């Protein structure tokens, strides 16, 4: 197993079970598809960063960060703040390359950091790092963070991977080691998003769930906590002792603007310098492009928008029906008209940027005549009101999405018309996110939903929690397979992929799985999202990345052109 291969397994990271699935429900109007190579070349040649931190940047978010302990349950926008307050052992940059942060170097077999079976880890830490309050950062803090995550009384945001850790030992103030109870390829990537918290502060709290630290966080990041006005904004100030690049800004302000249209207006008028999470809606894109003095960037995002079907419902049990439904969808109009051509069409669940993406999977075709023929051949004849039926089952079902997402609702209505043209009745039943993401989704009570999901997290393409037959919550399993999809071959392929560290072998398994799933069509993929965000001209350093939740991961490198 070569170094390169092992380093590449660093790319294998899954908080797969932590799927950013639910993120999409929070997304406002469609954030459209990703396209590789739509990133602008950074204007590095023009300007040099200032010698001392100067100026401030106002960052607009349409969700409010409210959880400031990075190990507690949080939503994506909270992570946007964590990147600036805290640091992980290592992280992925926008190309997917793993870069050491609090660790001195990435552990590999060659440098002795990783055993050849991937079970024993030994990580050297960067010396001379201090917390915002001046105390030194040591291996004790790393051990404390991991122990906290495994503490049953603590409300951890995730236990995947951490629960496999055993024998966490502090070898020296700058060295720590642990063992994993079984090989888990995505673990390297899980640590990309695991931020370290201070033992000397949280360790003293009576109950870490409600410690004052949670509202006055202390980290090792490029910026320090200054103030927060709930419901309005959060201000962070530059950390002069930051171990990494920068910071070049004196202050950063995260402004919360709940309405996407209002946020866009504020971007237009210059009240905010960077329009971030949830970004510019597709229908404002045309306007945004024409703005003088603003850079609008269409970057890739790892979400796939699809119609997810509940295979336990009688209408969806036959594969032919699902394929006919897929032929009956006019995805091109949805992408080009409703989403203004920003997303990219896709027929599989991984983003094109992932190394496990299978480009040979059959693309989607809109062919209503073929759809009708398929349904006729499968025995579904038009009955009352022109709706097809077979053996007493009417081809009629409900489709739900999160209420308030107007662009998606338009796509829903178009699909409703497409399907009614081939004799299938779809009823729209939208509901607020809190209702959909409760038992309705988790216990597979829906007929079909229209959502965007990120089946991987960061660079790792392990999608087991979504497709394994043991991951069906409605049947008592643990995972996100609410489609109740069961395919023993896919099970074997995904399990093999998660336990082997050989990237070529993993890719083979994952490509095969993608073909099988494309054939079975438990979900009907439409497009891959792109984020449309913008900055004021003169702001240098912004770089969208599919490997993070929010694009404020590198604010420590941002500065204003002089």
């Amino acid at each position, binding site marked *: 197993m070569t170094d390169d291969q092992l380093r590449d397994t660093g790319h294998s990271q899954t908080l797969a079970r932590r799927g950013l699935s639910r993120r999409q429900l929070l997304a406002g109007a469609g954030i459209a598809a990703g396209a590789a190579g739509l990133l602008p070349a950074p204007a590095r040649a023009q300007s040099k960063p200032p010698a001392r931190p100067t100026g401030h940047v106002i960052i607009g978010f349409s969700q409010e960060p409210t959880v400031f302990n990075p190990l507690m349950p949080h*939503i994506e926008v909270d992570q946007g703040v964590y990147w600036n307050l805290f640091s992980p052992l290592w992280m992925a940059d926008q190309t997917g390359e793993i870069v050491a942060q609090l660790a001195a170097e990435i552990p590999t077999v060659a440098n002795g950091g990783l055993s050849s079976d991937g079970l024993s880890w030994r990580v050297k830490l960067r010396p001379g790092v201090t917390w915002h309050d001046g105390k030194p950062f040591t291996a004790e803090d790393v051990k404390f963070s991991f122990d906290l995550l495994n503490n049953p009384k603590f409300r951890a945001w995730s236990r995947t991977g951490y629960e496999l850790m055993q024998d966490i030992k502090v070898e020296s103030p700058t060295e720590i080691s642990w063992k994993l109870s079984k090989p888990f390829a995505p673990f390297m990537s899980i640590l990309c998003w695991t931020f370290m918290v201070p033992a000397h502060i949280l360790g003293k709290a009576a109950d870490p769930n409600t410690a004052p630290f949670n509202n006055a966080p202390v980290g090792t990041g490029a910026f320090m906590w200054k103030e927060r006005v709930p419901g309005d904004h959060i201000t962070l100030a530059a950390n002069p002792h930051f171990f990494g690049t920068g910071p070049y800004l004196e202050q950063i302000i995260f402004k919360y603007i709940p309405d996407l249209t209002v946020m866009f207006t504020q971007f237009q008028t210059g009240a905010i310098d960077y329009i971030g999470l949830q970004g510019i809606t597709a229908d404002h894109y045309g306007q945004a492009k024409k703005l003088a003095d603003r850079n609008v960037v269409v970057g890739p995002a790892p979400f796939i928008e699809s119609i997810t079907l509940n295979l336990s419902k009688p209408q969806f049990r036959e594969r032919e029906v699902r394929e006919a439904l897929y032929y009956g969808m006019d995805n091109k109009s949805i992408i080009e008209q409703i989403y203004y051509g920003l997303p990219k069409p896709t027929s599989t669940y991984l983003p094109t940027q992932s190394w496990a993406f299978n480009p040979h999977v059959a693309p989607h075709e809109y062919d209503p005549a073929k759809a009708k023929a398929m349904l006729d051949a499968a025995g579904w004849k038009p009955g009352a009101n022109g709706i097809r039926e077979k053996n007493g089952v009417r081809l009629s079902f409900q489709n739900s999405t999160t209420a308030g997402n107007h662009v998606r609702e338009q796509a829903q209505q178009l699909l409703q018309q497409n399907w009614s043209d081939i004799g299938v009745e779809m009823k729209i039943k939208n509901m607020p996110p809190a209702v959909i993401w409760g038992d309705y989704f988790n216990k597979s009570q829906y007929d079909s939903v229209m959502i965007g999901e990120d089946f991987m997290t960061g660079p790792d393409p392990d999608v087991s929690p979504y497709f394994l037959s043991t991951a069906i*919550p409605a049947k008592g399993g643990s995972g996100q397979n609410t489609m109740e999809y069961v395919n023993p071959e896919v099970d074997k392929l995904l399990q093999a992929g998660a336990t082997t560290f050989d990237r070529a072998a993993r890719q083979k398994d994952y490509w095969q799985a993608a073909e099988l799933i494309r054939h079975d069509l438990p979900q009907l993929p439409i497009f891959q999202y792109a984020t449309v965000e913008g900055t004021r001209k003169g702001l240098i350093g912004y770089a969208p990345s599919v490997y993070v939740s929010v694009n404020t991961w590198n604010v420590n490198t941002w500065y204003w052109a002089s």
Partner: protein
Amino acid sequence: MSRFLFHRLAQYLVLLWLVSVIGFAVLHLAPGGPLAQFTLIPGMTAEQLQVIAHQMGLDRPLPVQYWEWFRRMMVGEWGRSYRDSQPVLYVIGAHLWPTLELMLSSSVVAVLLGTWVGVLGAIRRYSVFDYLATIGAMVALSIPTFWFGLVFIYIFSVKLAWLPPGNLYTIGDGSFLDYARHLIAPCLVLALVTIAIWSRYMRASMLEVVNQDYVRTARAKGVPGCNCPRCCPARWSPKLCSPGRAWAACFSIQSAIATIRWSWGS
């Protein structure tokens, strides 16, 4: 007298208790319940939700939960927000000032304008002004406020760019003038409905007073100018109470609208 007061007090205590029960029930029985916002977290599994539910005591029988909540509320232990573990009082308090600011300013504007329109309408009954004022008031009561806010933003913030489209103030500029500019739009839109209500009340009560004997005598005696100083004080007190409930209802709706349209702090 004291028996009457006692009865009334008892009734109102029962009323408050009923309100607390209804409020608690609605919050807990609504789909999703207090755990709803945790379901928004990516990767939240069913087991974790159960753990959280147990930690928060949400799996106890509902009457027990209600009693715990009620008991704590009585002693001032308002607990922490489910979402971010901040003390509830702090969360409420932080949002209180912007709401009050908006309510107070739009009340002042509404009362001043409303009184002027109402009194003038009563004095010049059936004139063109009165006619227009009546129509205006009726239309103002009928306009959906959120729509009016939209139109207002469209005209004044987008087309004419005279007023800022939202927020309490511009970051970096906290001057009084800046605050005032940001306050104008939501204040005016919210005041609209109250102006309508208030002007009609003032008009009605002015009409009652203007026809009183003592006023007619004063006019006959040749007392010059405006009748207002004599008439108004007599009619203030009862009239202040009746629109009270209408105001309360108005403000709840209007505050929600201001928050949505202008991201008004709260």
